C-alpha cells in the first residue's frame, strides 16, 4: 500500500470484520468468565478493536508480531486460528502452547505471533531482534510490537527505540494509549503530552493518531508498514484509545471518573464504525448480521474444540525445558 492509497468502503469493511471478530470473542470470553465457565486472568481489549484491525489489514502472516498480556486483539488481527487460541485459554494440550504458556504467553509462529509477554516493555527489545534478522535475511518482513502508554516509561522502551533508529530496523512500535496503566492515570505517570513526541529523542518518525478512527489508523499504519518494507526504518505510532473494561476482568475501575468513562463510551468505536459502514453502502444490516452469525459459528466451533480437548499429560512438565536433554532437575 502506498501512503496515497485512498481509504475505500471495502477497506472499512475489512477493518470492521476483524474488529467485530475481536469484539464478539471478547464479549463471549467475558460472559464465560462471569459465569465461571472460563477461569483465567483476562485483560479485555474492549475499545481497542479498531486500531488492531486497521493495522492488521496491512500485515502478512509472515510478518512478525510481539504483543502483551492485553494482546488478544493483536493476535486475532494477525490471524491466529481460533481453535488453538481458545484451547490455550482453556489450558488444553491442543492449545497453541499446549496449555503451558496460557493467555499471557500466546505464541503461534505460523500466523507470525512470535512472543506474548507479561512483562511491561519487554517486547520492544525482542522486536528489534526479529527485525534485525529480517534485515540480514532481506526477507521483507515487518515486525510489529504493541505496548501500552504505561510501558513508554520503562527503560526498555528507550533502549529499543534508540537502537531501532540507529540500525534502521523494519520495526513498528505501536503504543496503544488507553490513558491508563492498571489504575494509574496517564498524566500521573507520563511526563509528556503525547507519547509520539518521544520519537524525536531517537530521530524517529513519530505520529499520534486517533486509534478509534479506522481511516486515520489505517493511514498511519500503512505509512509505517511501507516505511519499514522500504528499508527506511522504524516508526513510533501512538494510537489514542480507551480501555472500557478496566485493567483485568473483574477490575471495578472505581479510579475512572464517571464523566470520563461516559464520554469515551459515547464514542465507542465499534458502533461508530458499523454506522459508517452502513451509510457507506459497503454493507447492509443483513450482511453484518450474516457476518456475526458466521463468526459466532466459528466461536462455537473453537469453544467446542477446546471443551473436547484433553488437558496436557503430567509428563509435559519435563518437556520444552531444554532442547535436547532434560535439564537441571536432579
Amino acid at each position, binding site marked *: 500500500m502506498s501512503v496515497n492509497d485512498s481509504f475505500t468502503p471495502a477497506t472499512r469493511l475489512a477493518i470492521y470484520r476483524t474488529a467485530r471478530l475481536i469484539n464478539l470473542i471478547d464479549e463471549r470470553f467475558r460472559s464465560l468468565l462471569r459465569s465461571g465457565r472460563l477461569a483465567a486472568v483476562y485483560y479485555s481489549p474492549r475499545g481497542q478493536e479498531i486500531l488492531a484491525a486497521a493495522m492488521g489489514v496491512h500485515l502478512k502472516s509472515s510478518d512478525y508480531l510481539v504483543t502483551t498480556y492485553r494482546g488478544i486483539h493483536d493476535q486475532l488481527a494477525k490471524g491466529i486460528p481460533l481453535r488453538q487460541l481458545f484451547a490455550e485459554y482453556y*489450558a488444553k494440550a491442543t492449545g497453541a*502452547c499446549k496449555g503451558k504458556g496460557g493467555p*499471557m504467553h500466546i505464541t503461534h509462529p505460523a500466523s507470525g505471533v512470535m512472543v506474548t509477554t507479561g512483562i511491561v516493555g519487554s517486547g520492544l527489545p525482542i522486536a528489534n531482534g526479529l527485525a534485525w534478522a529480517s534485515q540480514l535475511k532481506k526477507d521483507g518482513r515487518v515486525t510489529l510490537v504493541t505496548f501500552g502508554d504505561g*510501558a513508554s516509561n*520503562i*527503560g526498555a522502551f528507550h533502549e529499543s527505540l534508540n537502537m531501532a533508529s540507529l540500525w534502521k530496523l523494519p520495526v513498528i512500535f505501536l503504543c496503544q494509549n488507553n490513558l491508563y496503566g492498571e489504575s*494509574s492515570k496517564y498524566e500521573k505517570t507520563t511526563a509528556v503530552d503525547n507519547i509520539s513526541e518521544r520519537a524525536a529523542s531517537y530521530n524517529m518518525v513519530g505520529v499520534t493518531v486517533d486509534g478509534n478512527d479506522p481511516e486515520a489508523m489505517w493511514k498511519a499504519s500503512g505509512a509505517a508498514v511501507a516505511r519499514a518494507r522500504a528499508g527506511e526504518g522504524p516508526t513510533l505510532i501512538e494510537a489514542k484509545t480507551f480501555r472500557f473494561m478496566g485493567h483485568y476482568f473483574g477490575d471495578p475501575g472505581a479510579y475512572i471518573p464517571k464523566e470520563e468513562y461516559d464520554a469515551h463510551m459515547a464514542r465507542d468505536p465499534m458502533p461508530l464504525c458499523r454506522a459508517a459502514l452502513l451509510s457507506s453502502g459497503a454493507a447492509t444490516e443483513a450482511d453484518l448480521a450474516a457476518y456475526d452469525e458466521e463468526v459466532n459459528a466459528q466461536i462455537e466451533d473453537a469453544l467446542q474444540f477446546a471443551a473436547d480437548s484433553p488437558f496436557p499429560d503430567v509428563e509435559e512438565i519435563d518437556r520444552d*525445558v531444554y532442547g535436547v536433554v532434560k535439564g*537441571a532437575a536432579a
Partner: protein
Amino acid sequence: MSTPAAAAKPEVITFTEAFSRALHDAMEMDPSVITLGEDIADEEGGGIFKVTKGLSTKFGGARVRTTPISEQAIVGAAIGASLAGMRPVAEIMLMNFITVPMDQIVNHAAKLRFMSGGQTHVPITIRTRTGAGAGTGGQHSDMLEAWFAHVAGMKVVVPSTPADAYGLLLGCIFDDDPCLFIEDQLTRTQTGPVPVKGQRIALGKAHVAREGKDVSVIGYGRPIRDAMVLAEKLAGEGISIEVVDLRTVSPLDTDTIMKSVAKTGRAVVVHEAPRSFGCGAEIVARIQEQLFGQLKAPVLRVASRDVTVPFAKVLEQEYLYKASAIEASIRKTLEQRASR
C-alpha cells in the same frame, strides 16, 4: 502460630491486613518512613493488592507515591532517599519484575555500605509478592530469593504467619540494611492470630515454630504452614516433628538449625522455589559440614520442579512442592538407618 484451628478463632487477621498494619504503624511511628510503588496511592485504589490502602490519605502524597512503571527508578529513588536518612519502602508489584532493578539492588543497595567504608548505608525495604498456584503462569510466580541470599549485604525475609508478617515487616523497615520482604500471593487471605502493635521481630533469627525430637523440618514461608499441619497429624502417630521457621533466609541463622538437627539427627529442608541451586542446598551443605557423623539419615530436600511455572493447573500443581512430599521425606528419613 497459625494452624487451621486458628482460622476459626475470633481475633485473627489476614496476611494482607498484617502487611498493611505494619506499613501504617511504621509510618505513624517514624516520619522518615516513606513508600513508593506502582498504583499504591488511594487515588489508584491503594495498590493492586490493597496492602497500601489508606496510606496516602493518612500520610499524604509526598510520603506515599504512586510511580510510573519504572522499577529501576523506583528502587533507585528508595536507595537515594535512604542515603539522605529516610527509611523508604518500595513495592515491586510481583517478584518477576524484580529482574528489572537488579542492578540497583545488587550493585548499589547491597554494596554501598561496604564500598563507602561504612560512611553511608541503605536502610530500604523492598516489598514484593509472588508464589505459584494462582494460575498466572511463567512470568508471574517465581520465587527468586536464592539470588538475593547469595548477595552479601542483602537481608531476605519470608514470613509464614500474619503475626510474623507484621513483626518481620516492621523489623525490615527499621533495620539499617537493605531488606527484601517476600509476600506470598496464594495465602494472602489466610488468617492467623493478631500481632502485638509495634512489636518488631528481630531479623537473622530463626524461630522454632514447634518443638519435636524425631525429625527437623526446616524452611520458610508457605511450606512452614504445611509443615505445622503435618506435625500435628504425625504427632498422632507418635512422630515428633520439630519445625524450624527461618523467617530470615539470609543472613542464615545456622546456630538454631544446628541446635535442632543435633537433637533430632534427621532433617527435611523445604521451600517453594525450584530445587536446584535453591536456598535449601545451602542449608543441607551447612548441616552435613557441621553435623557429619551425627546424622541418622541424609538431609532431604522438598522443593518445586526445575522448570518454568506452567499455566495449566494440572501442570502447575505438578510443578509445586507438595505437602505429601514433605510427609514422605519425613518418613523416609525415619526408615533410613545410617548404612554403615
